[in-house]
C-alpha cells in the first residue's frame, strides 16, 4: 500500500465509515433501535487518523522505505538511525571470519572445494561409497567369502578328496569319505575306514617332530628305528591285546594332537604283545577302545577308554622316547600299527 493511497483511504473514511455499504435511502445511521454495535456508523476522530497515519509511517520505516514529507519530524529522524543499524560492517564485527572459514573448509569435502565435483552416478554406486580403498576392501571381502565358503564346504564334506584331507588336517574337518558321524562321540569316528589298510594321509603331518614327515610313508624305516631306539620296556601284562582295527584307529589320534610329552604314557601301558610294535607309543593306543580313540582324535583324550592307560602314564619316561627326538620317525604310526606292523613284527 502506497503512502498516497493510504492517505486517500484515511481521508475518505468518514464519508464511508468502516467500509459498510451505504444505506439505500442514503442514511448511514443505525438500522434500528436494537441494532448491534457493528452496525453503528463509525466516524474517525482526528487522533484515530493520526494513529493510522503513524502506523503506515512505521510500516514504511520498518520496511526500510523513506517516510512521507507529512510524517512527524521525530519519525523522520529515525530513518538514518535505522539505516545505521543495518550499515556496513565495523572492524570488530568480522573478527571471527577466519575461524568460520576454517570451519567451512573442514566441513566441506575437498573434492567439492576444488571444483571437481564427482558425477552423481558415482555416488549411487555402492562400491564408490567405500572410498579410495575400495579395491582392497573388495579383495578382502572376496577372500573372506572364499574362506567361509571353503570352511563350510569342508565341514560339509563337499570338497575334493585332497582338499578335504587338507581341511581335515588343518581345521579338523571330516576326512575324505567320512560323511556319517557317530552320535555322542567325536565328530569323526569311523574305525572301519582306517581298517582298510590304505594309509590315511592325515597321519603324515601329525608328526609332532619336524623333519620326519618323509618317513611316514616308509614302513620299513620306522620298523628299524623304532626297534633300535626304543627297547622293550616292562609293560603291564593286564593290557588287553588290541584288535587290529582298534589299534590302527586308536593310534591315529595320539599322533594327531598329542603333544610330545603325551606320547610317553603309551610306552608304559603297552602290553607284552605290543612289543611287536616298533614304536613304544603304539602300545597305549592299542589299548584304547574304538570309542576312546575316536574321541581322542584331535588332542581330546577320552575319559573312559583312556582310564586303563592312566596308571602307566605316571611312570616317567626318558626324554629320548619322544617321537622324533631320538631320530626315530614318528611317522611309523602313520601306517597304523595294526595291520602293517602286525605283519612285520609278528
Amino acid at each position: 500500500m502506497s503512502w498516497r493511497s493510504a492517505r486517500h483511504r484515511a481521508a475518505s473514511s468518514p464519508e464511508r465509515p468502516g467500509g459498510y455499504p451505504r444505506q439505500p435511502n442514503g442514511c448511514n445511521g443505525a438500522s434500528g433501535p436494537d441494532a448491534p454495535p457493528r452496525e453503528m456508523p463509525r466516524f474517525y476522530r482526528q487522533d484515530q487518523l493520526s494513529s493510522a497515519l503513524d502506523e503506515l509511517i512505521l510500516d514504511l520505516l520498518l520496511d526500510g522505505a523513506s517516510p512521507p514529507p507529512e510524517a512527524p519530524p521525530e519519525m523522520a529522524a529515525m530513518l538514518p538511525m535505522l539505516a545505521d543499524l543495518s550499515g556496513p560492517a565495523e572492524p570488530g564485527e568480522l573478527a571471527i571470519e577466519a575461524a568460520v572459514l576454517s570451519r567451512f573448509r573442514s566441513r566441506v569435502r575437498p573434492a567439492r572445494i576444488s571444483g571437481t565435483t564427482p558425477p552423481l552416478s558415482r555416488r549411487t554406486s555402492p562400491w564408490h561409497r567405500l572410498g579410495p580403498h575400495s579395491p582392497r576392501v573388495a579383495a578382502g571381502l572376496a577372500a573372506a567369502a572364499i574362506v567361509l565358503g571353503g570352511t563350510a564346504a569342508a565341514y560339509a564334506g563337499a570338497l575334493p578328496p585332497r582338499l578335504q584331507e587338507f581341511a581335515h588336517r588343518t581345521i579338523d574337518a571330516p576326512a575324505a569319505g567320512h560323511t556319517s558321524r557317530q552320535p555322542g562321540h567325536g565328530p569323526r569316528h569311523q574305525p572301519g575306514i582306517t581298517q582298510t589298510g590304505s594309509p590315511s594321509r592325515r597321519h603324515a603331518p601329525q608328526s609332532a617332530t619336524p623333519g620326519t614327515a618323509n618317513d611316514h610313508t616308509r614302513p620299513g624305516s620306522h620298523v628299524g628305528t623304532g626297534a633300535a631306539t626304543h627297547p622293550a620296556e616292562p609293560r603291564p601284562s593286564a593290557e588287553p591285546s588290541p584288535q587290529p582295527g582298534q589299534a590302527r584307529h586308536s593310534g591315529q589320534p595320539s599322533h594327531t594332537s598329542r603333544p610330545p610329552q603325551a606320547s610317553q604314557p603309551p610306552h608304559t601301558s603297552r602290553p607284552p604283545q605290543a612289543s611287536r610294535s616298533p614304536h613304544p607309543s603304539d602300545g597305549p593306543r592299542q589299548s584304547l577302545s574304538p570309542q576312546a580313540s575316536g574321541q581322542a582324535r584331535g588332542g581330546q583324550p577320552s575319559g573312559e577308554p583312556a582310564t586303563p592307560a592312566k596308571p602307566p602314564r605316571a611312570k616317567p619316561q626318558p626324554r629320548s622316547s619322544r617321537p622324533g627326538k631320538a631320530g626315530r620317525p614318528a611317522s611309523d604310526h602313520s601306517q597304523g600299527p595294526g595291520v602293517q606292523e602286525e605283519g612285520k613284527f609278528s
Partner: protein
Amino acid sequence: MIGAAFAATLAKAQDGDEAAFTCIFRDVQPVLVRYLRVIAPGAADDVAGDTWVHVVDGLTGFRGDEAAFRAWLFTIARHRAADRGRWRSRHPTVALDDSGAADRLTAPDAADVALERIGTRAALAAVARLPPEQAEIVMLRVVAGLDTRQVARIIGKSPGAVRVAAHRGLRRLASLVGDSTGVIT
C-alpha cells in the same frame, strides 16, 4: 542483502566455494552481531561463532531464498543466545565492559558524541533501551530485513502481535531520538 545473486552465491557456497561463502558471511555477520548485541549483550561474538558453526554444518542441506536463509540463520542465533543465557544464569559473571567503568573513566568528546549520534553504536544503544521483546522484533524487522510473518515464526507470536510490538518499539525509539540524553548513555 545480496539480492538477486544470492541463489548463485549460495549454490557455490554449498559446493564448497570459499569465496562465495565469504561473501555471504560478510553480508550477514554484521547484522547478526548487532542483533546478538541486543539480545545477548556481552556474548555476541561467542554466540555468533556458535551460530556459524551450525550454519556451516547445515549449509549443504539448506534450500530457500535469501529471506529464508536469514530467517534460518537468525533462528539458530536466537536459540544459541537462549542457550547462552541459560548457561550464564547457572554461571553468573560480571564483565568489566558491562560495569560502565570505561564510560566513567573518560569524558565524552564532543566530536565522538556527535558521531555516535548517527553511529551504529548509538542506534544499538537506543534499541537496547527498549523492552527486550520490542527490541528483538525491531532488530529482526529492520536489521535482519525479515518480514512480519517470518519474525512471528521465529519468536513464536502472531503476525499481528509482532506488528504491534514493532510499532510500539519504533514509537519509543522516536521519543528516544528526540531526547538526546536518552540516546547518549
